[in-house]
């Protein structure tokens, strides 16, 4: 159901074993070493079910499509943020539009201000 950018993928290219840890790191934009350490330690802390989960993920998750490698770094980061918290990302995009609105309003205000119009009229008389 989820689109291509919010799916979980195995990242075999950057992975050490089956690409699950690299996939998790890429999914949320966290450090891959930390994920690996967590994966190695957690069977002892939480229980052996983690190992089962690891292989289940490796078996069920699709491989990372090649197109995703072509994303610009800024966009990759954007989607990582979306996966973490889509609401915040939507607000961020709205903030960008507001910023654009303000900048354009500033230009408009300058171009249509009476002073400027007068100056232009004088210019055209010369």
């Amino acid at each position: 159901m989820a689109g291509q950018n919010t799916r979980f993928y195995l990242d075999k290219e950057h992975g050490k074993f089956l690409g699950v840890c690299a996939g998790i790191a890429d999914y949320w934009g966290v450090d891959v070493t930390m994920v690996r350490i967590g994966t190695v330690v957690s069977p002892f802390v939480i229980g052996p079910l983690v190992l089962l989960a690891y292989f289940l993920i490796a078996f069920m998750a699709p491989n990372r499509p090649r197109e995703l490698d072509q994303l610009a770094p800024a966009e990759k980061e954007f989607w990582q943020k979306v996966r973490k918290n889509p609401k915040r990302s939507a607000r961020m995009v709205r903030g960008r539009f507001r910023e654009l609105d303000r900048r354009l309003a500033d230009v408009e205000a300058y171009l249509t201000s009476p002073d400027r119009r007068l100056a232009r009229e004088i210019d055209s008389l010369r």
Partner: protein
Amino acid sequence: MEDVLIPLIVMPILFVALPWLILHYVTKWKVNSSLTGEDEKMLDELYELARRLEERMNTIDRIMQADNPGWHPLGYDPTRPSLEKPSVSDFEPRRSAEPTRQERM
């Protein structure tokens, strides 16, 4: 007595509390990140649109700055007066193989 008691305590923890805890957080996470395919497409479009508009806005800012010496764009930093790099931009092209704006129009 203790031989019976310890499994009685450990078993529920292992087989009830732990899966409960995990499922609890899984559902919580699912609810938090319920982004459908359409939502995702829309967000992608909006992001791309914002990026393109910002590019155009930067161009306008540059032209304005060149034409009107007294005018500075919003967020202008006098310590770094550079026409090439407007201070309000953090953009780079989306895809390497993307057609340029002229081609698309």
